[in-house]
Structures are given as C-alpha cells and as structure tokens.
C-alpha cells in the first residue's frame, strides 16, 4: 500500500501510517490529509509541526495533554483545548495528526 505524491510512491501500513519516517514531506502530509478527509489549515499545521518537533527531540509522540498545553501556549485557549482538537482531527488528535505528521502510531493507542 502506498501514497502517491506527484508521481512518487510512499509506502504505508494497513492503517495508513508511513513505514519510513524519513519519507515525510509537506506534500505527503497534504496527500495523507486528503485521504483522511481533512482540509489542512493553519491550525492543523500547528499541531502537525509541534508533533514533529516533539518526536525529533524525544523519539516519541507526546501525551495528548502535552500537545494541548503547547497549542494553548502558541495559539490561545480557543484552539488549545480538547474539544477543538477533536474538531480539527475527528478521529482523535493523537491517532490522526500523528499519521499526517508521518510519525508511528502512538504507543498504547489501539
């Protein structure tokens, strides 16, 4: 199974998580988002960028609580709250945003 990004293919697993983390590009994120029926806006990108930075530093996806705290800091409490995160990513900020950010499926996320 693979995503198609301008003619190049990027392998993913049966749930849509890419298999080689270094394959990730912004264009790929757009393709995954489309497959997830998400129209990426500035707020989606803020979440995706935070996830990638956090993973780079700790080699793990953050706890949802940590994600929300950080978004609250950078974009304000109207956006940095649990309810709004689920509006941005209806299938869960951890699961869906990690997929778009090209990270492995979060630990403990069934």
């Amino acid at each position: 199974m693979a995503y198609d990004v301008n003619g190049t293919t990027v392998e993913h697993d049966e749930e849509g998580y890419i298999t080689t983390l270094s394959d990730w590009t912004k264009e790929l994120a757009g393709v995954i988002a489309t497959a997830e029926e998400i129209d990426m806006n500035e707020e989606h990108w803020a979440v995706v960028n935070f996830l990638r930075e956090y993973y780079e530093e700790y080699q793990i996806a953050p706890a949802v609580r940590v994600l929300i705290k950080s978004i609250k800091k950078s974009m304000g409490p109207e956006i940095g709250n649990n309810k709004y995160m689920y509006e941005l990513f209806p299938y869960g900020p951890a699961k869906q945003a990690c997929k778009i950010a090209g990270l492995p499926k979060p630990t403990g996320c069934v």
Partner: protein
Amino acid sequence: MSETKKFLYVNRKAPYGTIYALEALEVVLIGAAFEQDVSLAFLDDGVFQLTKGQNTNGIGIKNFSPTFRALGDFEVTKLFVEKESLEERGLTADDLQEIMYEDEDDDWEEKPSIKLVSRAEMADVMADQDVVLSF
C-alpha cells in the same frame, strides 16, 4: 475510578542487546494512561539505560534514550537509581542524562526526576509498592 496503586518497574538490563529495556519503557508509557502511582528503578546493568550521549548508529537500532526525558510529560516523575550499581560500573550521577519534570503542585517548577538511592534504600522503595514488575 478504582483506587490508585503503587507500581514499580524494575530495570536490570542494559539498553540494547535484549528487548527488555525498550519493552519496559513501552509498558510504562502505556501504564501511565491509567493514572496510577508509577516509579521506575534502575539497578545492575539497568543503570546504563540512563547514560547520556548514547549513539546506536553502529548497531542499527533506534536510540530510545531521549524518550526517558519525556516521562515527566506522562506524570512519571520518580526514577530511582541505585548508587552501588553505578559505582560497580565506574559511573557517577554525572554520566546520566538530566531528566526533569514540572511539579504541578509547586507552580510548575522544574525538578529532577532521578533520585540516587543506596541498595538498602532501594529495598525500602520496593517494599513500599503494591505491584513490582521486573524487566
């Protein structure tokens, strides 16, 4: 929710070469979601898991040591390290990476998660638990 229990995850093995260290960390992270009172103990070769400057390029395995620094975000803030195990391996506290957490009850002040304890104190830590899981 049911009452909180005290869980201790005991790490005795070196970080690479076997899967124990990584699996223990994964279990800790999964368990953290259940809001129990979680502590980690590092003794014997387990103290090597916390050393700084790890580089796994030569063995083709992911260096998961940075993940220990994220434990505070999961409210895992007690990492007991046995002094004697460090000394027997020629290590000191300075060889370990700095792992901090923000104390919610103290205006989010940054505090160190690693606590050096003697072998005798480690026995007390273990005796004080409801559940001890050994890796």
